[in-house]
């Protein structure tokens, strides 16, 4: 087990390093400078600015310096929002994204599992068909479509929920949370359905029924606990999906989170912010994947970890 954890840790660290290096060189090898924007500046000011952000040094020196700073937790200073540290920006905005992401993930996992189980137990009934129809659509419709359509429908036409939100009340979570969770919810439902169908045909379920256990115990204790395993593996990619979705969802609902500021800093060529956010979110994702991989082996003892 320890060997496996170490090996996975090594791969994760390697991935992190590759991502870091890739991000750094991509950002720095491109021609053009963030300072040469809309307003003209004199060569002297330009040189001063370059010096201030260390952009005048050789690229390898910059790389080393940046790596050291990152390891110290210093993400550097934002170019567009002058005087603001990227680390501060992240710590100010990330809570919004985290809250929304957790809310959406919780909805996706709970409702997805329930719908998938119902669908599997009532296979080929009309309930199953309706659920499958909805989730098939859910997988195909991009999150920005779900977000905008639900905003117009429930926010503008029916006035049921706020369309611009600071995530301060529960009702302001509903629309962005729903838009963000629709895809993972649909995916989990399909995953859960096929895995439950697999499980309820197993011998141990027949044994459980033959012992005379109540249907509730059979489903919850023997069926669900085995059927839910594939959903655990999906948790890693789901976090990635929820974060990606949040890039657009946050802009659409004007939530002051990390996703919307990432999008704006890209268009503004605010390199330190883009890099900082990329590294922050990337680390989060890689760590989540690592955690899920390890967790999966704990949850399902049938998996041979030495392999």
């Amino acid at each position, binding site marked *: 087990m320890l060997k496996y954890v170490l090996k996975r840790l090594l791969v994760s660290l390697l991935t992190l390093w590759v*991502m870091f290096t890739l*991000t750094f060189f991509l950002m720095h090898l491109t021609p053009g400078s963030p300072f040469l924007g809309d307003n003209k500046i004199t060569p002297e000011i330009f040189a001063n600015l370059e010096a201030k952000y260390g952009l005048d040094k050789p690229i390898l020196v910059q790389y080393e310096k940046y790596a050291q700073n990152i390891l110290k937790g210093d993400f550097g200073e934002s170019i567009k929002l002058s005087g603001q540290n990227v680390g501060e920006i992240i710590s100010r905005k990330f809570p919004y994204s985290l809250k929304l992401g957790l809310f959406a993930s919780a909805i996706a996992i709970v409702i997805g599992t329930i719908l998938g189980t119902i669908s599997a137990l009532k296979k080929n009934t009309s309930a199953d068909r309706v659920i499958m129809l909805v989730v098939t659509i859910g997988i195909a419709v991009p999150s920005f479509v779900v977000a*905008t359509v639900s905003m*117009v429908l429930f926010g503008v036409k029916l006035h049921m929920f706020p369309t611009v939100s600071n995530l301060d009340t529960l009702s302001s979570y509903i629309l962005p949370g729903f838009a963000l969770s629709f895809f993972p919810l649909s995916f989990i439902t399909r995953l859960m359905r096929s895995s439950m169908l697999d499980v309820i045909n197993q011998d141990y379920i027949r044994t459980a029924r033959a012992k005379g256990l109540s249907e509730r115990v059979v489903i919850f204790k023997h069926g669900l606990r085995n059927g839910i395993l594939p959903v655990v593996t999906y948790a890693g990619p789901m976090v990635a999906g929820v974060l990606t979705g949040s890039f657009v969802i946050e802009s659409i609902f004007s939530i002051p989170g990390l996703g919307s500021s990432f999008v704006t800093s890209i268009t503004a060529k605010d390199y330190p912010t883009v890099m900082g956010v990329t590294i922050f979110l990337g680390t989060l994702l890689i760590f989540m994947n690592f955690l899920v991989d390890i967790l999966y082996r704990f949850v399902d003892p049938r998996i041979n970890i030495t392999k």
Partner: protein
Amino acid sequence: MREMDNTAVLENKLFMPATESEKATVEIMRPSVGYWKDAWRRLRANKVAIGALVVILLVLLAAVIGPMLSPYKYDQIIKGSENLSPNVQHIFGTDSLGRDLFTRTMIGARISIAVGVVAAIMISIIGILYGAVSGFLGGWADIVMMRIVDIVYSVPTVLIVILLQVVLKDPIDKYLSSANSPAFLKGLGVGLISIFFVLALLYWVDMARIVRGQILALKEQEYVLAAKVLGASSRDIISKHLIPNCIGQIIVVATLKIPEAIFVESFLSFIGLGVSIPMASLGSLSQAALKGIYSYPYMLIFPAATISVIILSMNLFGDGLRDALDPRMKK
């Protein structure tokens, strides 16, 4: 003793020419059903997949010849008819500059489908080559190549996609404005070319994994050994024996990559990193509609619905194709 018994059974009549009735039993009663025919039969029986195929063909038809039949051009600005709701002249209405949205949606569908297909082809070429080489070589080369795949796989794709999209813009722009760049590339524009780049660079991993798995299993088969004994080169074995034998899976993966690429393109265009104006893609149309969403929701509905229909039918068709070409992969 036994041998003598055996020789006694071999009578002359056993060596007579076969009679007509005996020959008839060897005749082929029915033409044998080959792999493709069998797959087509399975696919045809799948109503959902065929329905999806029909929808795809209709959208394709509208996207390819629709704009030519339309009385308006996609970038034609009609003064005095801005922000029209759907009516007889403009069945999807017009946008804030007075451009016909039906034509623009058709052009957008054309762009989106082209992105999907071209990206799927590029992904397939890279993935097949990488996977085939890795699987065929085996040993250390395989281990190293697969570790690289693992890393590319766990790098958060969308972050890198966005980053690449930003970074690639300038060099491509420079190349395009230089004199010796081909004209058709100029027609595509910076946004589209960098989308192709980005998709090809990051999305080949699944294809490589599946092809490698197939090749690993197939290369132990006798016909590969026979080819080797006959002196076929590794290249010939891979391209003439191994890859044709996993073409089913390759087609399935490639088909399912099309909607994925369309998804990524629309996402990028939506956050403003996709095609350049006045070109329209379904993602950029949806994004443009966002500004007037409170007053003119129809501007969003049509491109958004089109994109959903395209992705949905491609997904359904891809699933059907998988069941038909490779029944073992059926979920």
